[in-house]
């Protein structure tokens, strides 16, 4: 069959498994500078699904599209190391503070610049918000069907893609024509690891902004090898409406945040000694909590 053109949406996320006290700014938004960042786990699954399709349909190309601060260029490099063909970064201070609606608007502006495409893939959700909203919102704005929570591609042919979806209480196998947007569930195949050859080839890939502070070696490499320069798109490059991006394009606002302070119960503090545990079990049985 004809080769497909796939765009993978990927996000760099703060590692929410290691959150410190200074993780939030007073206005309630995330203080990203204070946190380690990782490739959003579900998006890595999406990348694997794209690579799997590429294995099955020779000639297929994969473009990783990310939106974020300069640091998010790591996502593009990581995509290259694992087998993506192209990478594009949408980066501009004015995109900051976006909720899912403004994010999907921005991503779609970028996707439209990459058109035509057959498949848009993305992780089901990102670990910094767990909303699972950006995928369906992009599908709506692109006016294409969505197939959410996909864990495996069953069949892929000229006219349609057949996929298995993981639902709350079961599975569903559905077919969709092209183009469509697929969100990938964490129960799908984990992403293959980096290829040493690709790491060698792309380790000096940089955005234009990064090149401003790069050394001569990297600059001379970029002169010889144009593929090393990661396209970097601003508000103007994607023709975004300022009213629809960043904070002003975001209907949801954080009114307040509260740190969690548990109201202390009067707890009985016990040790792991036999006497303590037997005492507790006896009390529970006596009060008919157990037994």
């Amino acid at each position, binding site marked *: 069959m004809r080769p497909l053109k796939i765009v993978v949406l990927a996000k760099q996320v703060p590692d929410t*498994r290691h*959150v410190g006290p200074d*993780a*939030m700014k007073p206005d309630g938004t995330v203080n990203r500078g204070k946190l380690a960042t990782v490739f959003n786990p579900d998006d890595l699954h999406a990348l694997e699904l794209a690579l799997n399709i590429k294995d099955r349909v020779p000639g297929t190309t994969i473009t990783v599209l990310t939106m974020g601060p300069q640091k998010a260029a790591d996502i593009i490099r990581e995509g290259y190391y694992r087998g993506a063909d192209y990478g594009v970064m949408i980066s501009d201070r004015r995109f900051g503070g976006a909720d899912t*609606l403004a994010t999907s608007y921005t991503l779609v502006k970028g996707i439209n610049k990459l058109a035509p495409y057959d498949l848009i893939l993305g992780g089901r959700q990102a670990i910094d918000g*767990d*909303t*699972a*909203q950006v*995928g*369906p*919102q*992009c599908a*709506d704005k692109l006016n294409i*069907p969505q*197939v*959410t*929570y996909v864990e495996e591609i069953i069949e892929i042919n000229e006219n349609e893609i*057949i996929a298995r979806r993981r*639902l*709350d*209480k*079961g*599975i*569903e*196998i*559905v*077919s*969709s*024509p092209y183009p469509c947007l697929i969100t990938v569930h964490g129960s799908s195949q984990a992403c293959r690891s980096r290829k040493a050859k690709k790491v060698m080839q792309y380790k000096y890939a940089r955005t234009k902004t990064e090149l401003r502070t790069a050394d001569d070696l990297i600059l001379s490499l970029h002169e010889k090898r144009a593929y090393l320069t990661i396209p970097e798109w601003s508000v103007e490059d994607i023709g975004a409406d300022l009213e629809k991006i960043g904070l002003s394009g*975001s*209907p*949801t*606002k954080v*009114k307040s*945040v*509260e*740190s*969690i302070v*548990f*109201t*202390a*119960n009067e*707890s*009985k*503090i*016990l*040790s*792991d000694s*036999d006497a*303590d*545990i*037997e005492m*507790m*079990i*006896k009390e529970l*049985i006596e009060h008919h*909590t*157990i*037994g």
Partner: protein
Amino acid sequence: MKSVMVYCEVENQKVADISLELLSAGKRLAQKLGCPLDAMIFGSGLNGIESQIAPFGVDRLFIGNSMRLEPYRTLPHAALATKILKEEDPQIVLFGATSVGRDLAPRLASKLNCGLTADCTILDIGDHFEKKEKIEYKDLLYAIRPAFGGSIMANIINWDMHPQMATVREGVMKKEIFDENYSTEVVEIDVNSILKEEDFVVKIIERHIKKSGVNLKDAPIIVSGGYGVGSKENFEYLIELAKLLGGEVGGSRAAVDAGFIDHDRQIGQTGTTVRPKLYIAAGISGAIQHTAGMQDASMIISINNDPDAPINKLADYVIHGDVGVVVPKMIKYYKENAK
């Protein structure tokens, strides 16, 4: 007209529990606002379905009744809901944070260009003074959810792009009959005039839905493990204890991520919310994402070798020690003392 609207899920003529819970939550909001509670439901064979919905205090029920609407598919449901929401212009719209609601709600939020807050644990009505514009906004939806690794609760509002939409997980809101004899006005939607052939391009080839083997919501006792359990072997002790006590085994997200336990047993904001008689938290530190799903347990026992674990503050009994040491002793002394 100002109203609260709930999207109801239905399969085989049975309205989903989550939807009834949302109707109760929606009714409480509607009463605070002094406005009607409306609902919409799309499926097959829905004649008489209002009898399941009316007791929750629904004023108007919009029904889309067609073979082609069940099982759920995104595009036809989105087309019908969009039409209703545009015409009725409700102030608030609620969805279950289910496979269906999380697929549909964002598509609608994009279509209507409005705000959507996922996985709320508290819904309320309140005001907001916007300093920049010096405007007081009255009667907004407070969509409150744990955020960011569970270290904070965030109150999310939306004052300028309506409607205000939110999703809520199953089990978070209490299901309450409002009035057994409440009368609901039924509004039949002319499905065929709204839907187009292109709404049906995605086809369901196969579908297998479990009747769900795990029922955490109704378990009187839950033995739950976290990352601190340490290993899959230690988790076996929890399973043994749960069996012995006639309860179910659950786990935190960290335990699920570590592969100690299956995802359908996850307790917390992104899992199941439970209210058991006894909750035993083994090696669970107690991030708000987890405690949001179990804090209403009547009694809580925390087993942890960290004396400062946040969950200890919720616990009735705090046992300082390793799960691998404490739980076998609990098994032993239960066997010795139970009648």
